[in-house]
């Protein structure tokens, strides 16, 4: 059971999207797990072949429990049969350990069971001394196909989501000594560039201004890589890839912060597509595990509301959060001239254990510079 968030204790398997024998490669979705906050599509982290699916739909298991066995190419079949109970957290009250019952299974039945993905523990044996035969396995497989698949009813995620946000934010304020910086950035060039770009595009291919802000943040993190990092065990662990967590508010309340992966390597169109895909899936409750767990920094954009400035709370173990307010027409003095410019207030919340204000200031300066050259974004 993968950990899909710092405060996740357990998850419920909703369904498998693979079966034993299927070849999978890194990044493939193998099933859906329900957490307190949402249903998450679980991706696999290794190439290989699905050997066994141990968890059943509807089963709730603690983080760390083995839910499936995936063999690497060429690995012996029996090499890695894990014991689920071994991973359960030690209970404070001793509980009787169930005695393992050795099943009588014919070798052929065992092979067929593996092919069909049947758990032998649930098969009634009809052979001599209740041995499980090939026919028993096939009967069990047929029965399973006919039985309606029991999916747990869709729960109300709101309470769980509030709890998860509360836990993460309380931890952040308890552990992270935040410092805050802010600067006003002239977006005239960005908006002119955007206007020209969008004039060329059909409505369905148009870019939103936030896409340019996100890209500029990614490039600025190349300039100040200490902010694209985790703080774990009293140490700064810089991250090479730039996965930006983007705070998405949900219509029914609450928010999720899934990551847009490899922002620095995407062009603006790819980024817009990624953002569209992410927001749509976040709001319909189908995010992927890597999007939930891999963010290296977070952006919160409250620009659509009337808010000018946002001082964010860092999502641990990240060390920085960038905030954008609304783009506002403001008086702007430059080169001894006063004019009116579209201006956004950009803020940085930094973890003072990891970086100092000096570094943070360099980041906001870089951000401003990147936003003055929108054609390079």
């Amino acid at each position, binding site marked *: 059971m993968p950990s899909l968030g710092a405060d996740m204790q357990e998850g419920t398997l909703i369904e498998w999207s693979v079966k034993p024998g299927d070849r999978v490669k890194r990044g493939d979705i193998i099933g859906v797990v329900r957490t307190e906050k949402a249903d998450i599509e679980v991706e696999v982290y290794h190439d290989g072949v699905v050997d066994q699916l141990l968890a059943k739909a509807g089963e709730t298991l603690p983080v760390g429990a083995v839910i499936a066995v995936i063999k690497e190419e060429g690995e012996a079949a029996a090499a890695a049969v894990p014991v689920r109970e071994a991973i359960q957290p030690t209970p404070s009250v001793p509980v009787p350990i169930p005695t393992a019952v050795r099943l009588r299974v014919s070798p052929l039945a065992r092979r067929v069971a593996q092919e069909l993905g049947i758990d032998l523990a649930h098969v009634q044996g009809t052979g001599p001394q209740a041995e499980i035969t090939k026919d028993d396995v096939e009967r069990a497989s047929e029965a399973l196909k006919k039985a309606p698949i029991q999916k747990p009813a869709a729960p109300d995620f709101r309470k769980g989501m509030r709890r998860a946000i509360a836990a993460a934010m309380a931890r952040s304020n308890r552990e992270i000594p935040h410092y805050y910086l802010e600067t006003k950035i002239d977006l005239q060039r960005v908006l002119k560039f955007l206007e020209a770009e969008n*004039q060329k595009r059909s*409505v*369905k291919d148009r870019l*939103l201004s936030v896409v340019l802000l996100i890209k500029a943040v990614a490039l600025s993190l190349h300039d100040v890589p200490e902010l694209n990092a985790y703080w774990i065990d009293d140490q700064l662990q810089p991250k090479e890839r730039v996965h930006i967590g983007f705070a998405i508010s949900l219509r029914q309340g609450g928010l999720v912060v899934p990551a847009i992966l490899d922002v620095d390597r995407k062009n603006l169109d790819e980024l817009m597509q990624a953002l569209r895909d992410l927001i749509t899936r976040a709001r319909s409750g189908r995010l992927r595990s890597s999007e939930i767990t891999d963010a290296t920094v977070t952006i919160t954009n409250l*620009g*659509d509301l009337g808010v000018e400035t946002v001082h964010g709370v860092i999502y641990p173990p990240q060390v920085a959060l960038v905030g954008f307010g609304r783009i506002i027409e403001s008086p702007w003095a430059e080169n001894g001239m006063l004019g009116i410019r579209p201006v956004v207030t950009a803020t940085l919340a930094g973890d003072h254990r990891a970086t100092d204000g000096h570094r943070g200031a360099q980041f906001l300066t870089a951000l401003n510079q990147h936003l003055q050259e929108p054609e390079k974004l």
Partner: protein
Amino acid sequence: MNEPEIRRAVTKALRKIAPEANLDQVGSDENLREALDIDSFDFLNLLIGLHEELQIEIPESDYTKLSTLGELVSYLAGRLK
């Protein structure tokens, strides 16, 4: 295309974005973004929905003319004449 047809198309596009909202309660001169808690992403989706329903391209420069339901309907009526 007459006004009730346009209204139906707008309602259909809005329902996809704000399925929980009671659209009958949104006044003709109420700010759509505020009344339905629509962000710029939702607004773009509204325009894409209208594009699919009515085959109309709304340029970005006209966005400011589309703050309320009433404005949106009369803008579309003008464009679809």
